[in-house]
């Protein structure tokens, strides 16, 4: 008879999609933004990207080796974290900041909480906020080449005017990966096409944010102001690539919509009334913390069940 037959519980077949496939798709989707960042900011940007990714992967490998856990660097998730973190760094960041951020993201935010799937906030954004607090000056200094360093949002805040076309193309100051709306949208379209993400979170996020700015932004229905707010800062990168992080967003359909609304409102509050012109990173990591609560109150009714009146569970 040769080999024994396998026995297991049904179903006996599996879809071809694996976690590694999905993560690889995210990396592919991030390529346009990364390439534009390198084109726009030069080789220094490439160096930072590579250093951050290498640090993240190495940290994951070393930690798992030391803890005698299965090595999971092959699942691309550390690559995604590293790439996202580097795209959130200004080109003026130093190599040791990239290393520090990478270690913080993987070791503190991800592995110490149990590794893949267990982190309660987005590792890349957690590390970015850590760097932002620790090295406020360097992290907010966007000066390079001929640019003075003020981001379009900062200019707007001071009452100046910005060229929205240049913002959409990405020809402005900002972090390595956030400037080009076009490059980010190409990546987002790829992820939507591949079914990696769905429109619920980014859609509700952006719409809520837009409504908030319309109501409280103080500029009313000013098209170019609204567009600048949408295209500026980390909003596009955050909405499409970081708010959609599976692990740190709700799994329930209604929860995803609630989450998007919370993100939009928080980002609006931070941008309109906060101390900084930017607010996406903090809005996302703060909303990450609300996810268990959101899920708890958005458990869907199962098929065929009807909510009885006065039925409190």
């Amino acid at each position, binding site marked *: 008879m*040769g*080999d*024994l*037959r*396998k*026995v*297991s*519980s*049904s*179903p*006996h*077949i*599996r*879809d071809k*999609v*694996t*976690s590694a*496939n*999905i993560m690889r798709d995210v990396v592919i989707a991030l390529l346009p933004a990364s390439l534009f960042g390198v084109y726009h900011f030069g080789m220094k940007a490439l160096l930072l990207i590579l250093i951050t990714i290498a640090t993240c992967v190495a940290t994951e490998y070393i930690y798992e080796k030391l803890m005698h856990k299965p090595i*999971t660097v092959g*699942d691309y*998730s550390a690559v995604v974290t590293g790439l996202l973190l580097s795209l959130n760094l200004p080109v003026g960041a130093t190599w040791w900041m990239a290393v520090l951020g990478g270690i913080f993201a993987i070791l503190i935010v991800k592995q110490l909480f149990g*590794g*893949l*799937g*267990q982190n309660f906030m987005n590792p890349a954004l957690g590390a970015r906020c850590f760097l932002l607090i620790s090295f406020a000056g360097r992290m907010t200094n966007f000066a390079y080449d001929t640019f003075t360093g003020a981001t379009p949002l900062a200019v707007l805040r001071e009452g100046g005017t910005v060229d929205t076309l240049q913002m959409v193309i990405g020809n402005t100051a900002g972090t390595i990966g956030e400037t080009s709306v076009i490059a980010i949208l190409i990546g987002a379209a790829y992820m939507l096409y591949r079914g990696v993400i769905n429109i619920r979170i980014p859609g509700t996020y952006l719409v809520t944010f837009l409504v908030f700015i319309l109501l409280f932004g103080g500029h009313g229905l000013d098209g170019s102001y609204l567009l600048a707010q949408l295209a500026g800062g980390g909003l596009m990168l955050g909405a499409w690539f970081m708010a959609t992080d*599976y*692990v740190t*967003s709700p*799994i*329930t*359909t209604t929860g995803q919509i609630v989450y998007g609304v919370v993100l939009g409102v928080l980002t609006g509050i931070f941008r309109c009334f906060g101390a900084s012109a930017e607010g996406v990173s903090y809005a996302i990591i703060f909303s990450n913390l609300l996810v268990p609560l959101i*899920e708890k109150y958005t*458990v*869907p*009714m*199962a*098929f*065929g*069940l009807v909510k009885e009146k006065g039925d409190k*569970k």
Partner: protein
Amino acid sequence: MATLTFKGGVHPYDGKDLSKDKSIVPYMPKGDLIYPLSQHIGAPASPTVAKGDRVLVGQKIAEAGGFVSSPVYASVSGTVKAIEPHFVSTGAKVNSIVVENDGLYEEAPGLSIKPFDQMTKEDILGVIRESGVVGMGGAGFPTHVKLSPKEPDKIDYVLVNCAECEPYLTSDYRIMLERPEKVVGGLKVVLELFGSAQGCICIEDNKPEAIKILQKECEGESRIQVKVLKTKYPQGAERMLIHAVTGRDLNSGMLPADLGCVVDNCDTITSIYDAVILGKPLTSRIVTISGDAIANPGNFECRMGTNVAELIEAAGGFKTQEKKVISGGPMMGFAMFDLEVPTTKTTSAITCLANDAVSESPTTACINCGRCVTACDEGLIPARLSQFAEKFDLESFQKWHGMECVECGCCSYACPAKRPLAQMIKNVRRMVMANRKK
């Protein structure tokens, strides 16, 4: 008209090309036949023969053990060799009657039936009960019980489940192509029981030939129509079928009859025809032998109790090393460790796979991607349910509606981390059900 379908579900490779063009071949068993006394839901049947007795084809060898039970008939002529526990395809050991086949196929007189137009509803139900017909789609629920709802006048739909959404299965498809008159005839028998009901033959749109043939067969039948369903697994699940055709939603606390529906599988309906019109008790069924490890996949008219290993030989045996042999289809079937088991009333297929996706895909951590949520046709959150299951948190499991799971397996199929979600949920459902019984 909008396509009839449901929310959720998956599209696995269906493998039906392997056997869909193979006509039904009657198979004559060679070795001993084994008749488990429990091939249905409910009380086991009790033997009416003893060791050494000679039995004939179509002779009753075990009596129904109660109302929710079903008799068993011999499918060959020969001698009763033993009455002893025997393994069945689910891996359980069930008390069974073993008959040594004498190869003569000597027939016993059929069921005593009146001409159909003289039958009362009670007569029809009596014949169905006596014939041993049970739900042949897999559940094995005694058909006469299903056809005896409390308020028969409230039934307005009789659905024939010809969706056959399980990959590899083509037995119902072949029945529709080769015996459409029996499908329609069986449905007419059931409609006779429910005066205000509409009969629907429900077929997925990947079987255009069957749809065409049945539409032709139904011409002039005012109470019967063919419903074309979108091809998606698990369209053939009872709740999904009722939803797609009638828009009514069934939950775990209800029976289809509560929503005015009666659902019967294709092969069940033809067996009802055989019993009520032809007076033939249930002694055989159509079994698909397929999968990429089988040399000549095909559809066999298989006498109940036939040894599975023998049937596989009839389909040319294995052409490559088989890794997994499944009784039923790959989504909901049972993996067998031993092929020396009998086919029963609920064996719709034997699927033999050269690769086992389960053991070949290592399980990794849940990344919360939500693919299981999209795939779940019951609107559940399998990822969370499986986490509760791992912790045996029965309370949260029920709060998140875990008991509504129909165990279709879509979540496990869709999971990119290859987590056995359905299995974990199944285990805990069993635990909760056992606790409720206490």
